[in-house]
């Protein structure tokens, strides 16, 4: 019951805002959207507390059930999504992008949130796919209509690329899921995880795993399939970038845990070395691009590719520690990316562009609060101990160093070394950005004051930075939640 409400509330509010309530003026639409997001967050907590679930037949012809519930693996992501939902709706007081009706914009944000919540709670493989697709159209609208006003052609290109890449991924995923369902005779994710692919021959397992991994790798994104991400993140309005980085990418990694890793562990194991190398190369590649990238927003987008590389590497290792590390790094990246995108969005609003080649006065002098948030974000991004990213990425490296028994250790050790080099690159680009933006290289004499974060923006930044610190100090908040559920996954050692 509660879990149904959790999905129905943002869906209803979002649909109303994009259809009948399109003309609602911002002074009404903003509180309405924020109230829905707040209600959703309360419901998310209630779902976790009460263990609410719903399970009824929806499409018996396909064996598809309307089945939603949360467990230890989805709990942190559920809370992350609900929290990010609050952040993006609150951020509407800071920035309402032009391009269409404000109510439509807020409605799209809520619809994306609905899709993500449904994805994280779906207990049925086909339903998971349907939920996975729900985010596509609202996100396409956010990027294509409310995105960067400067270049309409680039906007259309980024939005189209996002949709088509993701659709190609989800069609592949669909074939994989259907093959899995046909081979095992059930679409229930719990039953599939319990069976752990025993009903399938090795060839079939490999085929299913390949289709599932290929489909999800687009969303994560894993390196050669990442080219949709930088334009989409760069073009989207601030809240859209936050949702993309903090929530949508997580749907890919969550899917990797739920589907190939849990349901066809042997097939996944055979693909794991390739995945590990792709992840490690992603870490290095993302870091190298960040060293030379001029656009700060695009730089943050590429740093996402690098961070997701760690997550993929940890997942590929096949050990319990690895999956735990992946889930932790997932949540950590969600918070850090949200912080950085809110910050960069604010800078873009103030400066008109975030070209790093333009010499600007030091942020620490003109806007000390923004400067502090930037330092926290960058420090987290480079994996400083005591901040959120540190534990996830350290454990990811450890799990790659000591992978599960059936993984080829040489490949994984090489990948771990490569990823460690990438972590060093992260330090280099974080310091580059800090040097250019935070320290600045122009005297601040002509800089006006009063451009610092105030009001909602300040509180959004404080909340996100606080969460980054809390998760860095107490990673057990996530790890203890996921531990039992991960231990219950079949096929892990």
């Amino acid at each position: 019951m509660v879990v149904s409400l959790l999905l129905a509330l943002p869906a209803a509010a979002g649909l109303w805002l994009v259809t009948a309530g399109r003309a609602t003026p911002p002074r009404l639409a903003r509180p309405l959207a924020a109230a829905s997001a707040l209600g959703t967050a309360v419901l998310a907590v209630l779902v976790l507390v009460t263990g609410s679930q719903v399970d009824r037949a929806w499409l018996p012809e396909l064996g598809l059930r309307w089945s939603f519930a949360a467990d230890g693996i989805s709990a942190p992501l559920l809370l992350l999504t609900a929290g990010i939902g609050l952040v993006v709706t609150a951020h509407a007081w800071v920035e309402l992008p032009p391009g269409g009706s404000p109510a439509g914009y807020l409605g799209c944000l809520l619809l994306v949130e609905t899709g993500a919540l449904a994805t994280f709670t779906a207990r049925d493989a086909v339903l998971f796919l349907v939920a996975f697709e729900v985010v596509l159209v609202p996100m396409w609208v956010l990027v294509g209509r409310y995105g960067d006003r400067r270049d309409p052609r680039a906007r259309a290109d980024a939005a189209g690329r996002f949709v088509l890449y993701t659709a190609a991924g989800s069609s592949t995923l669909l074939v994989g899921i259907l093959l899995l369902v046909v081979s095992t005779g059930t679409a229930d994710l719990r039953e599939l995880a319990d069976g752990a692919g025993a009903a399938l021959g090795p060839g079939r397992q490999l085929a299913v795993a390949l289709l599932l991994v290929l489909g999800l790798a687009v969303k994560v994104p894993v390196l050669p399939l990442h080219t949709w991400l930088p334009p989409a993140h760069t073009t989207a309005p601030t809240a859209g970038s936050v949702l993309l980085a903090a929530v949508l990418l997580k749907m890919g990694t969550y899917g990797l845990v739920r589907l190939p890793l849990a349901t066809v562990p042997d097939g996944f194991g055979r693909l794991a070395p390739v995945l590990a190398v792709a992840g490690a190369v992603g870490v290095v590649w993302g870091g190298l691009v960040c060293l030379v990238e001029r656009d700060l927003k695009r730089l943050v987008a590429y740093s996402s590719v690098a961070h997701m590389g760690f997550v993929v590497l940890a997942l590929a290792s096949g050990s319990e520690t690895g999956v735990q590390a992946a889930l932790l790094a997932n949540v950590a990246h969600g918070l850090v990316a949200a912080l950085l995108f809110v910050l960069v969005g604010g800078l873009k609003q103030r400066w008109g562009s975030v070209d790093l080649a333009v010499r600007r006065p030091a942020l620490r002098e003109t806007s000390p609060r923004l400067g502090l948030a930037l330092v926290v974000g960058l420090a987290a991004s480079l994996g400083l101990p005591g901040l959120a990213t540190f534990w996830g990425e350290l454990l990811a490296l450890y799990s790659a160093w000591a992978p599960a028994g059936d993984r080829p250790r040489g490949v994984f050790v090489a990948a771990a070394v490569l990823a460690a080099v990438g972590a060093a690159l992260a330090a280099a680009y974080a310091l580059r950005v800090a040097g250019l933006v935070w320290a600045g290289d122009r005297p601040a004499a002509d800089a006006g004051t009063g451009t610092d974060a105030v009001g909602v923006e300040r509180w959004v930044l404080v909340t996100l930075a606080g969460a980054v610190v809390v998760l860095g100090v107490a990673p057990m908040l996530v790890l203890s939640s996921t531990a039992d559920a991960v231990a219950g996954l079949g096929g892990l050692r």
Partner: protein
Amino acid sequence: MSTVVSVDLLVLAPALAPVLGVVLLLVGDALAPGRAGGRWALPVAACVLVGGAVAAVRAALVAAEDPARTLCLPAPGDACLWSAGPRASALQAGVLLAAAAALALVHEAAALRRDTAVTATLLLAATTGGVAVAAARDLGGWLVALELATVPVVALVALRGTRPATHGALGLLVTSLASFALLVLGAGLWLTATGEPTFSSAAAAGAWEDPQRRAVLALAVALLVAGLGFKLSLVPFHAWTPQVYPRADLGTTAFLAGASKLSATAALLVLVSALAGVVDGPGPALVLGLPAALSLLLGTVLALRQEDPARLLAWSTVAQAGWVLLPLTALSEDGLRAAAAYVLTYATATLVAFAAVSRAGARSLEQTRGLLRRDPLAGGALALALLVLAGLPPGVVGLVVKILAVSAPVAAGVWPMVAVAVVAVVLGIAVYLRWLVVLPGPRREGDARAGGEPPRGWASATVLVVGTALLAVASVLPHLLLTAVG
């Protein structure tokens, strides 16, 4: 019993309703020619069609266990010439409602024409054929019904009287003659191979066992599929579609895109259900799979480049016909159900799109810019229809029927078709999003369309509201749609 053949009028009601309508119109027109410009004819015809649809839905509900049979020959043959299971009844209801929707669009444009009674009569005649073919089990009835569903449409296209329309009608006439020739030849070969003038699984199975008769049966199936390919607009028999759609008036085009496709699919399902589970091997799958794959790829790629909505919908029809055929390549019961569910969804969405285009009076995609603000009903309905055709939530029903359509070949292991389907999904999304993207847009001042506002009657509004409601309900409860098609 003195009767040779048993007749149950209630079971025949879906086909008799349009016949009754034809009689009413002809008598009415004879008694009071040109009364009120003949405009009374369309509402009468629409009422009759809706009545027929109610009868078909009743049959679908009653016939959940056994198909409703009539026109049965006495024992020992015991064969029935009319056998409508729930799936056939659902398709019949679809044909009748789609014809009613087409009539509504004709009504919208009827201010300009004098021959509405003739138009309505022709539409009703074609509908009768389309309804009958879904339940026909004998070769003769099947062929006659199929032609009855086609020939009046040629006259409808020609009736417009313009030069391009005549060209289009000529193309359609040549096409339908060629397809009739193929169908007759195929039917003859079917009779030779199976020795029975009915589409029965038992007879087909017998013929498939015998290597010599198997070749004849395979050839018969190939010819019948080719003949139906013309009516379904399958590549390589599609060439008439993009010529006729933009040249005929929108009502006729809507009939071609909706009711005609439903009846052609119903005819195809009669054929394939005789083969499902009986024949195997790559041959039959290839006969069905090749046109499906070509239609999916060519239709989608060419739809990507169209500027005229009618032309875009024409190529989209070609692609969607490929989607209807795709699950049939599995030659399984699931495939039949998926094809029926797909074609019903496609027809509803396409009719909504045509109704919106008719209301907007748009001759190019650019003219629909800002439709969501200018006319929220047409714009919103069109947006939902495009999302359903693309298979993206919130048009969940479009996604569900695509999942069903792909799951049949996955279960049967027809991998090449699955690969084609994946490509077609992605390209198809690009096609419909390209149109969807112009719908919001800003209202442009000074963009008064030449010729004043298009008619904004209640007829197209009804089509939009009913169609959108059907799509929305099926999106929330797709189970209802699948129950309807068995």
